[in-house]
């Protein structure tokens, strides 16, 4: 089964490992640069991109700000359409609900559409523990599952693998799970896709239970939407007798009409296409077409905690397009695994510490996994100001303060390891509010500048390991200003 994220080292350690892996660096650079140029072209095709982005932001904000009402509306509409709605406060509860539903069908295997929500809760592992085998059917998820690997990208979880590695995994592992890879399989993408088609077809045809997530849930009608490329989603959504969809409570949009915004922005932002090959919509069950039984599991798992944070709640607007990963200079070099979460990249750096809290080393380090360059904000199709939330979360890590965990208001203690930073900031505040002290300090720094070290000692060492210390000028700026009256005397030196 895919590896776990528990006990991940903090981002800097994990990233240091990753940047030394030249194959990984090459794979990521190739993939992210390919998609970057294509996305820019796909977005440039629509002259109203800014307006679509603003509308998407407002639809999501409005829904989130009235989420209780829309959740009740979803429940009523899905139930009226023949579906059964379940509520899961956390991962454990969601896994228990799904496992019980699968067990009740008497089946011991399920086919799965790629879903971030089920990745997040570790559903495959929970099903495995209950004796149910979950087959991932998305090509990239299949590569991760067969390779006993972890996902490293929201859209393309196997982005860290190149075609040669994929060929090797298929040849080695497919026979363990079912139909072996064809003899003499080469590494051309078309042949690899064909191998996946053959391997999974028997599983699709016999599957009695399908498990999915959803990209959107329409409150007024109870309609679910899955946006995909390969047709594995259609297989899982239409061939089985029972369909179980696990959906985060932030996936709701109020009306059918709202899809007109996201069905334009999502494909262009994710795979850089005018439209993805397949989009499926369904409302409850349909007589004689598709599953006869439909369950919707509404998942909280930290989302209401995120919603309680007035700055951080904008992260819940995310439609999981992964454009922010593809443009991020940090992601491009560190790769997805270093983020220690199914949500890597810039969005992961603000989502994981909010969904899971900042207690663990990895979650406390994620708000720092950014250069704050802002490229993520610029490409985000729902205008999430990721740098703003990153800075907000850094503040929470360093200073502590009020937060909501599992529905309860708590006061977080300042994180360990930031004592020197806090002390430096306090000292700076003290000096900056006392002009005499500041002047004396600056003069002292200028006079002793020959003796300044190139790197900081003690707790400052980590900071200066990746940065050059600024050179102190021979004369403090304020002295120079007074001496030359701002350069007006012509005596600039």
């Amino acid at each position, binding site marked *: 089964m895919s590896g776990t994220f528990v006990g991940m080292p903090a981002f800097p350690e994990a990233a240091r490992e990753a940047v030394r892996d030249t194959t990984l660096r090459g794979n990521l650079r190739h993939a992210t640069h390919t998609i970057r140029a294509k996305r820019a072209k796909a977005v440039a095709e629509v002259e109203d991109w800014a*307006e679509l982005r603003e509308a998407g932001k407002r639809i999501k904000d409005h829904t989130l700000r009235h989420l209780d009402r829309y959740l009740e509306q979803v429940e009523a509409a899905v139930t009226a359409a023949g579906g059964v709605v379940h509520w899961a406060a956390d991962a454990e509860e969601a896994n228990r609900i799904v496992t019980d539903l699968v067990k009740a069908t008497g089946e011991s295997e399920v086919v799965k559409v790629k879903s971030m929500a089920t990745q997040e809760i570790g559903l495959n592992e929970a099903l495995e523990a209950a004796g149910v085998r979950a087959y991932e059917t998305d090509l990239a998820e299949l590569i991760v599952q067969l390779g006993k690997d972890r996902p490293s990208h929201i859209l393309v979880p196997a982005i860290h693998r190149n*075609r040669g590695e994929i060929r090797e995994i298929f040849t080695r592992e497919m026979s363990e799970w079912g139909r072996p890879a064809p003899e003499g399989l080469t590494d051309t993408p*078309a042949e690899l896709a064909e191998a996946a088609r053959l391997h999974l077809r028997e599983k699709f045809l016999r599957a009695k239970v399908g498990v999915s997530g959803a990209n959107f849930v329409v409150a007024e009608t109870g309609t679910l939407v899955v946006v995909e490329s390969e*047709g594995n989603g259609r297989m899982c959504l239409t061939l089985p007798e029972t369909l179980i969809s696990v959906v985060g409570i932030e996936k709701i949009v109020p009306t059918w009409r709202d899809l007109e915004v996201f069905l334009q922005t999502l494909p262009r932002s994710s795979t850089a296409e005018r*439209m*993805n090959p*397949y989009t499926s919509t369904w409302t409850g069950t349909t007589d004689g*077409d598709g599953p006869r039984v439909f369950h919707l599991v509404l998942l*909280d798992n930290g989302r209401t*905690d995120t919603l309680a944070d007035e700055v951080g709640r904008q992260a819940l607007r995310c439609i999981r397009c992964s454009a922010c990963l593809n443009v991020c200079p940090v992601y491009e070099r560190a790769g997805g695994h270093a983020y220690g979460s199914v949500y890597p990249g810039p969005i992961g750096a603000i989502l994981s510490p909010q969904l899971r809290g900042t207690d663990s080393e990895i979650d406390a380090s994620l708000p720092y996994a950014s250069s704050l360059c802002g490229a993520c904000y610029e490409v985000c199709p729902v205008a999430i100001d990721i740098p703003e939330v990153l800075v907000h979360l850094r503040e929470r890590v360093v200073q502590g303060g009020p937060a909501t965990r599992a529905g309860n208001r708590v006061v977080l203690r300042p994180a360990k390891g930031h004592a020197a930073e806090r002390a430096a900031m306090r000292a700076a505040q003290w000096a900056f509010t006392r002009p005499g002290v500041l002047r004396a300090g600056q003069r002292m720094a200028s006079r002793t500048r020959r003796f300044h070290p190139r790197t900081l000692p003690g707790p400052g060492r980590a900071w200066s390991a990746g940065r050059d210390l600024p050179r102190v000028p021979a004369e403090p700026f304020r002295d120079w200003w007074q001496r030359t009256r701002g350069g007006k005397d012509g005596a600039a030196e």
Partner: protein
Amino acid sequence: MSSRERSSRERILGRVRRALADVPREEAPYERAVERDYLREHGTRTVAETVELLAENLADYRAVVHRCDEDGLPSVIAGLLRERGAASVAVPPGLEEAWLADTDVTRVPDRAEDTAAALDRVDSVVTACAVAVAETGTIVLDGSPDQGRRRITLVPDHHICVVRVPEQVVASVPQALERLDPLRPSTWISGPSATSDIELDRVEGVHGPRTLEVVLVDGAAASR
């Protein structure tokens, strides 16, 4: 819903309400909260140009596009099935009889009791569609009698889809959604099955039909 789940429902709704304590009661309702300054369609085109754009965009994503008039349709469909070497074709219950008049390929009716495995042995499928979107090169099926169950356009490897032009063609995604009933299951198809999962580059042909042929049939309305 078990009592445990019922309590989770109350717990989640309670958490949501507490989380939103800062949201003013009198906040703008949905109708006013969302400004829709974006376009209903991109650019202005004549009806013929919109159909032309559909053909272009379908072809751009590797659908094979054919054009004919109503009278020529049966022979076009027969020709496509012959070229494909299809021995059998899945037929939705409400497909116009005349469309298959020129072919003697074995017809497999779309029946609820047939298994997916049986459908896997069928070579091709012919359907109509609900609407087609020019800007994105998309055809949409909504399970109407001339389109059949969702699986018949999924399991066979060769899909022939007939679009009546210009009446079934809209320019944009917003216009397509207006024409669709959300209570019917819909499938939006833009080209044959594809993936971007290997090095983020698009390759055609994974689980859905690997060959998608779209026949744009002119003047269907006039002849009926």
